[in-house]
């Protein structure tokens, strides 16, 4: 059986992939508008007055000369699906927070407020694109098809990875701030290397045409705080000088635990891009349509040889950093109210209602669907089996390791002792 870890096998499978699966969400394939200019490294460098926004906080759609073309296929039905996605992941988040409070999870980092940034970007991805995220991208994981128990396994403390990264095309969540940005670049470099191999004709059956631009791309998610890490700066350098097909998607949610973004940067984060020689774009991270547009553009650039893009999605973390955090120590309720007025879900609902595409019944139907997902999540958590002691020793190495095997055997004998010496000794 072909290994899923062999990139060439994947490429073959991609060739046979049914593209309707993801186009159903209006985010399929490479959505270059017919009128798109050839990808240029200059595009998006200067964000002008700043932020790309297509739907404002009141739900009003504003025309945009550059970005309308990137979402011209997004009709009411597609927008409704994006709306439903956001309602569902918000509901997942609420349920997981409750599960943590009730002792079913050890910890949970809420995404409340960041739904549009995650859904808009994740729905821009092709199924074969690969995601390297932090720990907060539950919305992205949901879009990748990771459901129920798999989403919660790690947070319940039973395993280090809730899903098979190759199957989901998404690496396990990353806790070490910024580390995943480099992993994404490496994966993207692998795509380039595959392409060169194909061009030399060394990978028969890969299906790629010689000289074709890469068709896969990589996206890396990280926070505003992460931009201070050396790993992230190194990722920018490597991606830029190697023209790697990667998108750096930074959710600037204004806070890194208790530290405001002003502690990480004196200028808008998007300005970092210029110094590394890549396009940067600042987008209203609470506008799902704008996020979809800028991410599609960046992915298109990556796929067509234009190299990396840095996206700063301006949003807000309305919940605590994690369920262990107490944000009242470092921020005001006025600030939270300010951002509640810019809610990503409400604005799309308002827009759809104004367009006559959403009514009370429609909202109720979406809410019911979200409740069903939440119920599935709750059922999933109780179905997660506890790991057993041999798992402590499992998978540490790919090949047998004599000392560790001996250590495991000694521990097994020690545990056996409890069964044979009941009531003895101490």
């Amino acid at each position: 059986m072909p290994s899923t870890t062999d990139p060439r096998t994947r490429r073959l499978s991609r060739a046979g992939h049914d593209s309707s699966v993801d186009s159903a969400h209006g985010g399929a394939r490479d959505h270059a508008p017919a009128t798109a200019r050839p990808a240029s490294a200059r595009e998006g460098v200067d964000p002008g007055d700043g932020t790309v926004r297509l739907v404002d906080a009141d739900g009003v759609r504003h025309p945009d000369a550059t970005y309308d073309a990137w979402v011209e296929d997004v009709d009411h039905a597609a927008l409704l699906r994006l709306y439903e996605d956001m309602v569902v992941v918000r509901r997942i988040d609420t349920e997981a927070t409750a599960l943590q409070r009730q002792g079913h999870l050890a910890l949970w980092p809420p995404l409340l407020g960041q739904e549009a940034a995650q859904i808009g970007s994740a729905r821009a991805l092709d199924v074969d694109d690969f995601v390297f995220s932090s720990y907060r991208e539950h919305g992205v994981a949901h879009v990748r098809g990771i459901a129920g128990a798999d989403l919660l396994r790690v947070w319940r403390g039973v395993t280090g990875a809730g899903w098979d990264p190759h199957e989901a095309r998404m690496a396990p969540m990353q806790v070490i701030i910024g580390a995943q940005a480099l992993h994404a670049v490496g994966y993207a470099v692998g795509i380039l290397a595959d392409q060169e191999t194909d061009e030399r004709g060394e990978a028969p059956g890969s299906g790629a045409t010689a000289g074709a631009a890469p068709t896969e791309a990589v996206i890396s998610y990280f926070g505003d705080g992460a931009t201070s890490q050396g790993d992230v700066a190194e990722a920018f350098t490597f991606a830029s000088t190697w023209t790697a097909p990667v998108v750096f998607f930074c959710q600037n949610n204004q806070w890194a635990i208790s530290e405001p973004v002003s502690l990480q940067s004196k200028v808008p984060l998007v300005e970092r891009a210029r110094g590394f020689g890549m396009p940067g774009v600042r987008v209203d991270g609470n506008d799902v349509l704008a996020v979809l547009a800028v991410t599609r553009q960046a992915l298109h650039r990556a796929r067509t040889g234009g190299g990396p893009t840095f996206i700063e999605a301006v949003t807000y973390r309305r919940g605590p950093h994690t369920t262990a955090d107490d944000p009242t120590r470092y921020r005001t309720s006025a600030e939270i109210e300010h951002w509640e007025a810019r809610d990503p879900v409400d604005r799309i609902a308002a827009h759809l209602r104004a367009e006559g595409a959403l009514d009370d019944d429609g909202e109720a139907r979406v809410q019911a669907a979200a409740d069903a997902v939440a119920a599935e999540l709750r059922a999933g958590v109780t179905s997660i089996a506890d790991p057993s002691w041999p798992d402590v020793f499992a998978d540490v190495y790919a090949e047998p390791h004599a000392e560790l095997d001996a250590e495991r055997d000694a521990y097994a004998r020690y545990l056996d002792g409890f069964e044979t010496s009941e009531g003895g000794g101490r």
Partner: protein
Amino acid sequence: MTTQTMTLAQGLNAGLRQALRDDDHVVLLGEDIGALGGVFRVTDGLQREFGPRRVVDTPLAESGILGTAIGMAYRGYRSVVEIQFDGFVYVAFDQIVSQVAKMHARTRGKVPMPLTIRIPVAGGIGAAEHHSESPEAYFVHTAGLRVVSVSNPQDASTVLRQAIACDDPVIFFEPKRLYHVKGEVDPAVDLADAPPMSAAHVVRPGRDVTVATWGSHVATGIDAAEAYDGASIEVIDLRSLSPWDADAVTESVRRTGRLVVVHEGPRQAGVGAEICATVTERCFEHLEAPPVRITGHDVPYPPAKLEGHHVPDLDRVCFAVDQVLGRVPLDVPTVSAAVRSGGEMAA
């Protein structure tokens, strides 16, 4: 002397406050140590009291924190760095190992590095990945660093002040499991009268077996000593791992003839290996049994639901005591002959 009941975290807070008062060149650097007071509240209220120039929220970059602390040391500042969790210190490892540790020797003593690097350490708290590690061996292995680990609120306060006053860089481990443990603390102990930072303490005298440990497992050792029937167990809190108080341990083992070392970090090349080797060299003729180590396994720290099978506990320490007393056969992990001759590769 006036004492107050404090948690270990409050003892650390009191130690930091005293150090900030005693020396205006002491500064605190770290992530979330200001308004939040650190994720464990160890720096609670200190920024309010001493201002943001002395209690500094840094950008989110551990290598950056350590690197700038080095530059500040050139200017005569004593930085006390908070690493938020053990698993994040590796991001700063290069600055610590290649720069902090070597600077004094490199400059022939002209540039001391009086840094204190505070690291919440070890597990047993049901935390996520990278939040439960015991990385002490890396630092003990690095010449130029001193390494200490506290086990009670008084030491938390006093040893922290000693570490800050010390002209060498000190890796200061704070066992997370103990942050809420309470004890009596005199926050203003005269450091001139305090026992040296590097001295071990016999926390429970005994005749038959020496248990040497540190940090959160001092409590495990005491529990075992109290629970164990039919033998008298001496428990030593090493307190300092580099240097470690070999005299105190060998003196004890000469009396008891038996040694158990308990630590949570992995076994291979762990600090216990050094202790067992030294004791064997120095006390060979006094030993009634080979020294036994109870440690974390040689695995990445397991997910929370499995940590009970990883972290040394009362039962495992009692089992080791059984072993050195000859009550159960010595059963240390042994690599089979077949494996040693390469059989594993064929399998």
